[in-house]
């Protein structure tokens, strides 16, 4: 995956992106496409082509389909925001798919679909679960900052290696699984 480096106005004559004002990208003024060596590129009308772009949610929990920030890292290592996609649904299917793929790449999160067993191990909570990426066993410290709320009914768990495990909605677990989960992660 490659991309042409983007620099500020001083570097290459491109229009300077004002970091103090949000720029909302719409299908009318921007195109999202793959550039050289299959890197994600964004072409903005009356501006330029940005390469090496990655996508990040602004409100990953509240509004995951809206407010997606498209960004790149310049040669100085500074993160620059190319623009914000206000609503992903408004974009053509191909553009949307590329952004979704970029988001998938940026967020390495296991989504827990079933809980087989939870128990104590070495003073940690030991999870044996089924995830969208296959079966997984992991250890989590029994601390509040290791399990965050995700929306109204979900939880994000961080294991000892800071890998993320998401339960989007505890309501989707079976009664037994939910009861077992809440016995340990009750906050």
């Amino acid at each position, binding site marked *: 995956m490659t991309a*042409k480096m983007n620099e500020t106005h001083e570097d290459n004559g491109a229009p300077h992106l004002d970091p103090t004002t949000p720029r909302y990208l719409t299908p009318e003024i921007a195109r999202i496409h793959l550039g050289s060596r299959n890197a994600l590129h964004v072409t903005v009308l009356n501006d330029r082509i940005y390469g090496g772009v990655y996508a990040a949610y602004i409100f990953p929990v509240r509004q995951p389909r809206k407010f997606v920030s498209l960004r790149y890292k310049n040669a100085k290592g500074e993160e620059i925001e190319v623009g914000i996609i206000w609503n992903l649904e408004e974009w053509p299917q191909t553009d949307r798919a590329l952004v979704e793929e970029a988001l998938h790449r940026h967020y390495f999160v296991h989504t827990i679909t079933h809980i087989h067993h939870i128990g104590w191990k070495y003073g940690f909570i030991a999870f044996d679960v089924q995830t969208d990426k296959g079966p997984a066993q992991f*250890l989590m410290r029994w601390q509040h900052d290791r399990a965050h709320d995700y929306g109204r009914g979900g939880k994000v768990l961080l294991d000892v290696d800071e890998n993320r495990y998401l339960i989007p909605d505890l309501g989707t677990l079976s009664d037994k699984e939910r009861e077992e989960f809440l016995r340990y992660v009750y*906050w």
Partner: protein
Amino acid sequence: MVTTERSRVLQKDLPHSLQDELAKVHIQPNKVWLCTDTDLNLSGNYEQVWLAVSDDALAVLAEPKQAGQPAVRHFISRDEIQEVRVRQGVGGGFLETIVDDIVVVVLAFSNVKADIFHKVAGKLEQWMHKQAIEVDASDDADPRHCPKCGLTLQFKGDVCRRCVNRGAVLLRVLKLMRPYADKAAIMMVLVLIGAGISLIPQQLVRLLINKVLAPEQASNPPLDLATAKHWLMGLVGALLLTHIIGSLNNLGVLRLNSYVGTQITYDMRKRVFDRLMQLSIDYFDRYNVGQLISRVQGDTEQMKGFVQQLTTGFFQQIIMVLAVGTILFIMSWQLALVTLLPAPLVVAGSIWFWKRVYPRYYKVWDSNSKLAGVLNTILSGMRVVKAFAQESREINRFDRSNSYVRNSFRTVEYTVAKFNPTIGFIFQLGGLLVWFIGGIWVLQGRQITAAGGKAPLNLGDLISFLGYLWMFYQPLTQLTQLTNWLTGFLTATHRTFEILDTPIQIAESDKPISVPDMKGHITFENVTFGYDRHQPILKNISFEIKPGERIGVVGKSGSGKTTIINLLSRFYDIDHGRIAIDGVDIREMSKTDLRGQIGVVLQEPFLFRGTIYDNLTYGLADTTPEDVIAATKAANAHDFIMRQPLGYDTYIGERGAGLSGGERQRISIARAILYNPKILILDEATSSVDTESEKLIQDALLRITKGRTTIAIAHRLSTLKNSDRIFVVNRGEIIESGTHDELMTLQGTYHKLVKIQTELSGNVDSLQANVK
């Protein structure tokens, strides 16, 4: 390239099938000096992907999943690469290179592999610049993983929870009791005596019924009234004596219990606090204050519980069950067996109950600590709450936590309320069974086998038996909680021992070098350091500061300015490189000499609750009032102190409440003057004070920095005009260094910053002019 013993992590064996593919892109497998694998592919899915690096190029390979799919996913020659870097994603990261102004995402990795690829990026950076690289077994050393089992530790030097010896915990607790062994032994003897005494009354009751009240049913000759009265008085007197001895014995047990329990708790709390004082700042960055308070206060309190359990708790109950059980079998083994009928039910029910209710106790504990945390936050931030008129919001927030405590308590207590009557009912059933069977046997005059041979069961035996029955069931129920109590106790004790076992990261060297009269010659040699796992804050920085030199440090927030002074004071130890003062590595230097000769004035000076004088002389026992006055005069603090109602003896609140920011700062400067440090660090010393205070503080600083090596961090560049040299720090590197004039001539970052601040200042001036 220098290679010695192979690294297990960075010099893995590439699978044979991929070796052939590597050869196809003209990288000979035997020329590969770095070979490691990652767990993710660039689509963010699990896949084993390999990175192989030779002297001339790098390649990324993976087993093709479909026919026609290339095994080599990237091939980049070294000469093409302009930069190697790591970009952090969420839950993982990416190794990137820049080739001909093009970003190439080389590979992705999950957080499990993050440490490895940060190390790889460092090696590739050297490789790219054609520097000598060492890859060997020393690269496998990973302070963030347990060397024994590989479990990820919370921070460098953390105790591995998997490897900690749990069995030894009880032994360690018992060792703590060693100084009180004599008292503990007396306590246990008293407990045994108490158990023996508690068995007597039922025998006296038995005698009372069989001999005095209903002798006929026990086939005893009836007594005349006078004799019966004597017997009655004698037996009641004996009962009274038993109770008096029992109470005195109990008094002794409880007193000793309290003495030993509180003393051991005191000892433990002292040990934990002493340890906390020795631990590095890093440790306090990792744990919040509330948690540590809970450990020092709450968890150590468990020691008292342990002593109580040894005496009035489980030890006593075990003795009682054994003693009463023996008596029951001696009295009548047949009835004793009937007694045991509900016992399995009671034991099974109790185990089931505690298994369910125990996690709920944790919830109670959690709710209490949460409430304390909320209260702490609200009360500490009361100024902000009031400034934003958010009282009602905070009342609601507190109410939510308060409700949580109430509800969690209710859950436990409701469950206990269900359990206790149920167990009570089962007991009643047992009692009724004994009443019924025993009653029939008494009526029938049935012969039972007791210790003294066969004899008919009489009323006295039955009443006494029932008395013992309750004494048997009660401790039996409590013993079912032994495992749960033990688990809770071990958990709390374990948390306490975790602090005691945490290695002192900033430890004194085995042979500390004494530097009693520091000159203040500072050198940083290739220093790299990061607070967090994957983010170095300072990257390979080197500089030298001569004795007496005044250095200004400027840079954006987060650029690493404060980190430099944290490292110089050895609040943290560096990851790589060397920091020396007067040629001595600070890790080898005596900590007392090091910190005793470095004075720090912070942006937000911390003052303790106490008088102004106490704060000024903090840690300086020999200071005279004359010294103090001289220091406050030099710090422009004397006059405002004298305006306080009690002058230097004015009591100031927590964190210096009652004084303005500028006043607190001047006290802090006076403290630094009294300290008379050889190296003075000023960290944004004037940034949070008004202009008038700033002028007073600047004047004071000018006086005290004379002849001392001074490092001053400041956002307001005007405050650095007296510096001999200025360092411009950006993203963990010193990008410019020189005098003010040199840096202005350079027209670089410093010049830009000065220009921005001059413009801002100009705007303010014009604004003020307009207002006028």
